[in-house]
C-alpha cells in the first residue's frame, strides 16, 4: 500500500515540477508577491501632505505651524491665500489635510479664549482620514500642553498614558506580513489542486487510475501530499523572507506554527480538491477556485477585522480556514503564543480539512459526467 501511494505521490510531483516553467509558476510569483505586497500592505501613514491657509499674523499661529512643520509625519505642499483655493486642492487629492487658521487666532489664544483651528480632511479614504486626524490631534495636544505648562495654567484632572502591547510602534506591516503568508499559501494550494482532477478527467487519465487497484483513500493521499509538501516549502521560504528581510519578530513556537500550517494546508488542499472533483471542466475549476479564494481572503480578517462584520457574516467566516490560520500566524509571530492558546484555532481547521477531503474522495468515484 505504501509503495502504491509513494508511486502516486512521485507521479504527482513529476507532473507538477518536471517542467521548469511550472516550477517557476509555483516559486517565483509568490516570492515576488510577498516582497511587493509586504511593502504595499500597510495602514501606516508615513507622510501627510497638508496645506496651510493662515489668516492670522500673530506669533502663536507661527509657533503652531512650526510644530506641524517639525513633525516627521507632516509635509507641507502648499500655502494658500484665499478660501477658494482650498476646494480644488483637496478635490484633486493634492493635499490630504488643510489647516485653516482664522484672523483672530493669536488674539484669542492670548486672551485665554479657545482659539479655533479648522482642519479640513479629505474623507474619501476614511481610514487615512481618521489616522491623519489623530496625527493632527496629537500635534495640537502637545502644543496645548506646552502652552499650559509655559503659562502655569490649570491642566486637566486626568491624562492618558497609552501603550500598545505586542507591537509598541504600531507598525502595521508586522500585522499584515504574517497574513500575507497565509494568503499566498492559500493561492499556491489552489494553483496546485483546483485544476488537477478536472484536468485528469478531461485527459482521461483519471479513469485509468480508477481501474487500477489503487483505493480511493490512496488516490486521495496521492493528490493531497504534493499540495501539502509544496505548501510547507513555500510557507517556509516566505517565513524566512518575512523574518530575515522584513524583520518581523517571530516570538512564538515554531512547532505550533508548523502544526497550524499543516492543518491549514490540509483544509486548503481539501477545498481545492473538492472544487476540482466537482468541476467537470477546467473552466469550472477555475471559477470555483475564485469563488472560494476571493471570499476566503476578504472574510478572513486579513485587512478588515472580523469583529467589524455583521453577525451573519461573522458566522459565515467560521467555515473559512484562512480565518483560523491568520489568528495562529499573528499570535505565533507577534504574541509568542504556544499550543495552549491556539487549540481553539486548530481543531476547526482539522474538521474542515477532514470534511472536504472525504467529500472530494467520495466524489472521485461518484461524480457523474
Amino acid at each position: 500500500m505504501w509503495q502504491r501511494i509513494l508511486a502516486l505521490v512521485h507521479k504527482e510531483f513529476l507532473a507538477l515540477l518536471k517542467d521548469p516553467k511550472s516550477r517557476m509558476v509555483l516559486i517565483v510569483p509568490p516570492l515576488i508577491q510577498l516582497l511587493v505586497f509586504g511593502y504595499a500592505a500597510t495602514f501606516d501613514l508615513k507622510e501627510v501632505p497638508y496645506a496651510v491657509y493662515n489668516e492670522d499674523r500673530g506669533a502663536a499661529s507661527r509657533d503652531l505651524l512650526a510644530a506641524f512643520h517639525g513633525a516627521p509625519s507632516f509635509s507641507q505642499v502648499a500655502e494658500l491665500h484665499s478660501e477658494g483655493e482650498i476646494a480644488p486642492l483637496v478635490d484633486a487629492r493634492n493635499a490630504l489635510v488643510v489647516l485653516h487658521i482664522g484672523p483672530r487666532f493669536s488674539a484669542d489664544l492670548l486672551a485665554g479664549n479657545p482659539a479655533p483651528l479648522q482642519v479640513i480632511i479629505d474623507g474619501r479614504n476614511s481610514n487615512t482620514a481618521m489616522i491623519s486626524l489623530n496625527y493632527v490631534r496629537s500635534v495640537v495636544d502637545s502644543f496645548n500642553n506646552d502652552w499650559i505648562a509655559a503659562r502655569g495654567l490649570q491642566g486637566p484632572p486626568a491624562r492618558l498614558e497609552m501603550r500598545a502591547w505586542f507591537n509598541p510602534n504600531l507598525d502595521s506591516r508586522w500585522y499584515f506580513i504574517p497574513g500575507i503568508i497565509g494568503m499566498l499559501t492559500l493561492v499556491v494550494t489552489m494553483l496546485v489542486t483546483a485544476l488537477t482532477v478536472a484536468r485528469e478527467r478531461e485527459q482521461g487519465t483519471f479513469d485509468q487510475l480508477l481501474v487500477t487497484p489503487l483505493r480511493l483513500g490512496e488516490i486521495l493521499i496521492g493528490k493531497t501530499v504534493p499540495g501539502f509538501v509544496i505548501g510547507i516549502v513555500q510557507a517556509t521560504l516566505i517565513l524566512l523572507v518575512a523574518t530575515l528581510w522584513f524583520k518581523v519578530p517571530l516570538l512564538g513556537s515554531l512547532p505550533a506554527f508548523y502544526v497550524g500550517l499543516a492543518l491549514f494546508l490540509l483544509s486548503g488542499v481539501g477545498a481545492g480538491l473538492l472544487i476540482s472533483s466537482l468541476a467537470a471542466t477546467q473552466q469550472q475549476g477555475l471559477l470555483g477556485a475564485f469563488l472560494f479564494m476571493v471570499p476566503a481572503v476578504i472574510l478572513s480578517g486579513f485587512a478588515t477585522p472580523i469583529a467589524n462584520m455583521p453577525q451573519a457574516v461573522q458566522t459565515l467566516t467560521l467555515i473559512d480556514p484562512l480565518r483560523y490560520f491568520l489568528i495562529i500566524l499573528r499570535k505565533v509571530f507577534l504574541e509568542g503564543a504556544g499550543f495552549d492558546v491556539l487549540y481553539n484555532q486548530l481543531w476547526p481547521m482539522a474538521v474542515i480539512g477532514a470534511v472536504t477531503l472525504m467529500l472530494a474522495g467520495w466524489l472521485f468515484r461518484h461524480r457523474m459526467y
Partner: protein
Amino acid sequence: MTEDAILVAEALTKSFRVADRVTTALTGVSLSIRPGVVTGLIGPDGAGKTTFMRLAAGLLVPDAGRITVLGLHATRDALAVQAMLGYMPQRFGLYEDLTVQENLDLYADLQGVPRGEREARYAELMHMTGLAPFTRRLAGRLSGGMKQKLGLACTLIRAPRLLLLDEPTVGVDPVSRRELWAIIDRLVRSEGMSVLLSTAYLDEAERCAEVILLHEGKVLDHGPPSAMSERMMGRTWAVSMAGKRNRDLQADLDGQHDVVDALVQGDHVRLVTAGRALPESVTRQAGIAAREVAPRFEDGFIDLLRRRQGGTAHVAAMDGAAVPEGKSTDGVVIRVSGLRRRFGEFWAVDGVDFEIRRGEIFGLLGANGAGKTTTFRMLCGLLPASAGHLEVAGLDLRHAASAARARIGYMSQKFSLYGNLSVTQNLDFFASAYGLSGSLRKQRIDWAVTEFELAAFADQLSAELPLGYKQRLAMACALMHSPEILFLDEPTSGVDPLARREFWQRINALARQGVTVLVTTHFMEEAEYCDRLAIMALGRILAMDEPTVIKALARTAANPEPSMEDAFIHLVEDTAVAEAA
C-alpha cells in the same frame, strides 16, 4: 497535366519544434492535383496529412518549397486563397452551444453570402445532408456523423472551387460514412467541385479517383487506386485449414518467409504473398485450402510499407502473460444481464445481456451513441448501473475490493497516459499502481520495454511519442500486471495499418494464453478478428454471434458475400425502420 492542376506543391518541407525536439512533418513533397475529381490523401497518423492540408489553406508557412492553389501562392495570398476554397479541419469548429441553423447563419455571414441567396442554399444543403428536421437542435446534441455533415454544410455554404476535407470520416459510424461519401460524390458530379480528402481508412481509397500515399512526410505513391491493387494481382489468397482456428492459423502464417500479410477475415485467413505463388512454407502444411482472391487497395499499401521497412511482420510472443485458471467453473468470466443505464430521461444502455468466456475475444460494435462506451464503463466499475446485474470475474468492480481490480487491464480510446511523464516514468508508475514490487516489478518493466520495443523512447515524454508508440505504451501499462481480463476501448483508432496488425497479433497471442479480451471498435474490419461480437444501437444489442454468422444476416441475392459493414448497416437500418413503425 500540371497546367490545369488545381493544386501544385513543389518540394514542400515543413518541420515543427516541440520543446527542444524538431519533428519533420513533410520533406520535399511535390505533387499536383487534378480538378473535378476526388483525390485521396492517404496515410497513417503522423504521415503529414493535416500539415499538408493546413499549408494548402494558407494556415502554415512552409520551411521550403511552395504551394500553389487555384493558381495563387497559398502562403503569400492566403486571404485570397481562403476566399476561394472550403476547408473542413479534422475537428470541425462547430459551436456546440449554437443550433444547426445558427451555425449555418454564422458561416454564411463570415463567408459573405448575400441574404437573398441564403434560403435556397440552406434548403439545398439541408436536403443534401438530411439535417432539415434538426435545424433547431444544438450542434452539441447531434451524433458524430451528423456533426460531420453539418461541418460539411457550413464549409459548402458558399460553393468553393476546391474542397479540402481533413479526415472527415474519423469517428463516424458506417451508415453516416456512406452518406458523407454520397454527398461528396454528388458535389463532384453535379457541381464539378474538386475535392482533396485525407483519410486513415484504407477502404475509402477505392472511392477516390486518385490517391496520394503519404508516409512519414514523403509521397510513397501517387495514382489511381486501381493501379495499386493491380500490382498485387495474383498475390492475394483466402486460406483456411480444417480443424484449426483461423486465429491460430493466422498466427502460424504471419511472419513466415515470403508472407507479406495475414489477416483473419470471417471464415478464412486472407494472405498476401511476396510472389505470385503461395510459398512452400504454406502449401507444405497438411489440410490447407487456398484460393486466389481479388486484391484490395490495402494489400498494395501494406506491401509498400513492408518493403520500405524491410523484412516481414514482427511476431509478438507475449510470453509471461499466461493466466491461471479462473475460479468460475463454467469458464464464464464476464456476465451481464438486464444492464441498464440512464442519463436524465435518456436510456444510454437499455437492457443488455451477454456472457464472455475465458480466453475469448469479444467485440462490441456500434455507432457513436449506441451505448457501447457506457456499457464498457459500467463493466470497468467507472459508472454505476441504473439497473441489472453485472459481474467481472465473479465480482461487481464498482464495489469490489481493490485486489479485484488487479485482475483487469484497461486501455481507453484516448490512450490516457500522463503526457508530461516519460515512457519509463509511466511504466514505473503503473507498475507501482498495480502493486508490483521487487524483482517481479523489474522483470515486468523489462518485459514491457523489450516486448513493445520501447527502449529507444525510454526518456521521451509520452505526449511527444508517435501515435503508434503511444498505443504500445498504453497497452504495456495495461498489461503490466498480467491481467486475466483486458478491456480495450477503441484501441486502434488513428494508428497506421502496420501498427494495427501488430496490435492484433498481440491480442491474439494473449487470447491463446487464456486472457479474456473485451474490445469496442468501429473499424468493421477489426470486428472480423473477434471470436464473437455484439452489434449495438440505441442502447440495445441488435445481434450477437460469430462474425461469419452476423455477416450472413445481410446476405441477399444481389450481395452474396456481404462485408461486415454491409451487415452492420443492414442491422442498424432494420432497427430504425422497426423503431419508426
